[in-house]
């Protein structure tokens, strides 16, 4: 055996046996007491019965997840009071009961899959119970909830972040892409769209170009410099070339 590594003797504490396919019937041949439901006797309780200590009170409630059968979700769910001071387990029908002393408690349904809103339960010394919403900021605020407690799931708990998937739309509507693509489109496609052979259009363009081009009356900076440093003849050639190209 693997565990014999320690080399020491292993004391075996607990042994259980099971016989395969053998029914276990107790050999009590003569059970004489008759059947029937056992009824509780009131006299007993008065004489000797102490029951649960009188300081604890029973808090009851029920929880549900909309659209789900109870057995489908209670397997790993439980009730905790004051974050683990007391525990409660769900019964088959989703109901639960807790035994708490008097005081104020936060009762919450803990389920790894379903989210529930916690409730604050106030139990007076006489055993009067009321329920209200948990408000940690204003402790005295009374937002009453029905008692017996009713917990209804708010929905599935989302533990995971959505992984970003690469979509072509994300790429296209990225502002960097738009900034790069839009001027490109204007530059390439717009001139193609405008019919340059139309004389009307040509005239219009000419006009707009004239508008755009610097005012002829104002001295152009480059011309000013050429005038200053170069000869006077160059001016004419440059302007004539410009005009030529435009046509």
């Amino acid at each position, binding site marked *: 055996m693997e565990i014999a590594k320690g080399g020491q003797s292993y004391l075996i504490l607990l042994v259980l046996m099971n016989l395969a396919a053998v029914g276990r019937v107790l050999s009590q041949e003569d*059970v004489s007491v008759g059947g029937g439901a056992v009824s509780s*006797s009131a006299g007993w309780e008065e004489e000797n*019965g102490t029951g649960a200590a009188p300081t604890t009170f029973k808090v009851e409630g029920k929880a549900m997840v909309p659209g789900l059968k109870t*057995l489908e979700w209670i397997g790993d769910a439980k009730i905790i009071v004051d974050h683990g001071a007391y525990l409660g387990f769900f019964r088959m029908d989703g109901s639960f009961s807790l035994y708490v002393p008097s005081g*104020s408690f936060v009762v919450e349904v803990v389920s790894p899959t379903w989210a529930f809103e916690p409730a604050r339960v106030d139990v007076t010394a006489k055993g009067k119970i009321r329920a209200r919403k948990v408000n940690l900021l204003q402790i005295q605020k009374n937002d009453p909830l029905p008692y017996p407690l009713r917990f209804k799931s708010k929905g599935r708990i989302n*533990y995971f972040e959505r992984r970003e998937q690469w979509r072509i739309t994300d790429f296209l509507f990225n502002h960097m892409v738009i900034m790069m693509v839009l001027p490109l489109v204007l530059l390439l496609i717009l001139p193609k769209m405008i019919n340059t052979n139309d004389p009307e259009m040509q005239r219009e363009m000419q006009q707009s170009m004239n508008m755009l081009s610097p005012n002829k009356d104002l001295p152009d900076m480059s011309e000013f410099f050429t005038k200053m440093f170069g000869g006077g003849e160059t001016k004419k050639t440059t302007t004539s070339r410009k005009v030529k190209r435009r046509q």
Partner: protein
Amino acid sequence: MTGQGQGFSLPWILLAAALVLHVPPTSGMYEDQIGKFDWHQQYIGAVRQAAFDQSAPVSKRIFVGTESNVVAAINSRTGQLAWRHVQERGDPWGVDVVLHKGNVLVTVCSGGDAVRAWDPASGTLLWEFLAKEKNDSPAKALLVEGKQDERSHVESVAVLTKKTLRILSAVDGHEMVSTEVWSGGETGGTSVLHQASNGQLYSVSISSQAAVQIVSYTHVPGKGYEAVKRVIPAGWASPQSTQCVVTGDNVLVCSEASTNSLHTMSLVDGSGFSAVTLLSLGFNSWQPDSLAISAVQVGRKEVLLRLAQDHYVLLQATADTITVLKDLPNVYATTTARSQDRDIMFLVTVYTFLKRDGSTGYRALLQMEDQTLLMLQQLQGNQGHVMWQRNEALASISAVDQVDLPVSETESKFEEEFGEESEEDLSIWQMFTRRITTQLEQLKDLADKFEEYRKPRAKQVEKQLERDPFNLRKMIVAVTSAGKLYGLDSANGDIVWQYFLPNIRCFGQGEMYLFVQRTTAHFPHPPQAMLVAQDKATGNGLVFTFNPTTGQPVNTTATSGILQPFKVLQAILLPVMNNHHLHPVMIVDSDHGVHIFPPSSSVLSVLKKNNGKIFLHAADLEKSTLTGFSLTTLKDGKVELAQAWHLSLPIPSQKIVSVVPRRANEHVHSQGRVLSDRSVMYKYLNPNLLAVMTEGIERDIPLLTLYLVDAVTGQVVYSMQHKRASGPVHLVHSENWVVYHYWNGKFRRHEVTVLELFESQGDRNSTTFSSLSTQSLPLVLQQAYIFPMGLSAMAVSNTERGITARSLLLALPNGGLMTLPKNILDPRRPIIPTKQHQEEGVYPYIPELHVNPMTLLTYNQSIEGIRGIHIGAAGLESTSVVLAYGLDLFYTRIMPSQMFDVLKEDFDYFFISSILLGLVLATLITHRLAAMKTLNRSWR
């Protein structure tokens, strides 16, 4: 942004600022990352009671009740848990009784205060009965059967606690009868419940006034139960040492350890006991303290008497005689099973199983002393085989550490060459040849790797665990309170090695000391760890040194540890190293004597060098005093403690609940915080600072007080009080801040307070810190937040260089493990935010903290009963590895500042490379097109 900050850690401040400003503080995981780097192991604890499933014709399950108060169903073929319910903790023994018959499964726990009936198939609660007696011993319980239509069925559940007998309906759990066992101030113990064959219920209790009290309960239809009490004088009986059992034909047999005798009587009508001494039965050796008696099987006439731990006797008892049927030496445990025609008795010995009938198949569930749960199945012949085993000792880890794995063979050779200063001086030629040979070997290794890649080796050779490039894989060394040591592979939680020390136990507070004296970083020397525990028999200290990566003891002659001749008060790993890179461990005994392990001369010389520089502190939790000591080496080589300071905390009614130092050798990368006006607030980084939390009640008001004490001088640096606040307090202390979680009784909510300490203005020596030369008290900023839940443990993340932002790990009561970035708990969060705060990246103050499910590392798994969180630093600066342990084990990685030093796993290599390729192609094509165009133009 912070612009041209003057801090030397500017890039990181910029990075942090960028993160804060642009990334919302969630570090959620993605759904496809489930199980990628986390694992979860569910345990139930040491089994106390077990029953094989009878509700279905083919038995598949075992119902168990454990010492951790867990009720669970185990699949008997695989050993996996079918369902599990963790009940409220409280008493040390766990589940009292598990009763199972037919479709009824009833568990009794908390000394009879909680009786619950479960549906065997689904584990759903059917009914429960809760009381508040607070008994200090386990209850006895019995399923009472009645007969209906000639078939017996479970009618009710009888529970006998120390004070009360209750009979609860098996249908809905309502209390049918509740009667006090003792009338008028009488006390006693050792009770037995028995249902006689005529259906009558008997309870037998031994009174402390030398009498045996027998109460019979008869069910009267329509009236309930009727009780008849008989008191039989028995001068020999005492509640402490007497054990009783009732046989199938209603004979009460009691064993009495003080007189070493057996007493028998008829339960139904007997009026006096007849005694038989053990000597007269022919036995001459027994251990009185292990004397115990038990019934062989319900309804059988034989009883088993345990004479010693490994000696049983099978007896047959009648009302006035006892006969020995069989002497069973060398037997540790026995049980019986019922077959169709006869009872078979199985004796479990250390080595073999003896049985009388080989033809019937059987399975046996064994709980070993090391809390391993074994399922044995009989094979042909006399051999059995282990179907599965569960290492339930891992549910009670008392000390844990994460050790780096050893480097691979190639790297170790490299280490051999450069790592260690070699003792002999090598000539240049020798060094050259050594270099060449190493490189050749490296080349060979590379060739081997290629070969392995080309055709994977057919034989699966289990390679020795090696460190991965980022040092993410560790060896988890866990010491359990059962005395079992485990080495777990952190990649998947598999057990790599295990070692059993049968004679150790925890110290009073449930702790053992585990120290890693030498890590794997010092290659030619093997790593070494030391466990300091208590010896079971004597209570003295026990020291066990072992290799944490293999589990082998260092000292092969002392395989179960070395027993010390003193009681351990405290054990500490000293912050010095000898020339073999071994940290010595110092053990302080109960007389304040000092013992150094290993006591070699090299260690002592190192201590002599550091004479008076090593300080220790001891806290007396009851008297709420703190005492500081300095370690001094005397001339004759002896080491002793000299008291340096003594501090009695001002409120004597308060008890110290925790003393938290900063983590030893904690790296803090950034020395200060840059404010928006470009000035720097320097952190008060006192490595000797202790956070001491005391709790108590002063004038009927619960009070929490926190002291920050310098451990070298005993100076109280800061203290603060929370009125009407109480524990449990969880406190973490790191860098220049302290965060603690407590219950605010005034507002009935949990709160988290953060204290951050900064240097007060003025000159300071930034390179070295000395507690003895600082006088100025730090500037303390504090803020409190409302936390919506209680906690079961709290820890802080830790990385290799301390560059990564810190994150708190909180174990929530619903079984979740939550991360909370430290920058959310920032005492500088303003109530009215200004532009400066925004620039600095401080959020506005919001009093309530929320639990965002995306910050739960455990996603939809519930980690039950977390008691501690151990955090190790990975080789990657961004990553810490986290082990949460308690009843369950959970392991994962955290990246508090996201993965800034490696590419994310969802990094789109395809996208990036396709864009690059596309760009290159586009460049080539456009270049070609442009060339063609210019050519065309030239021809025009």
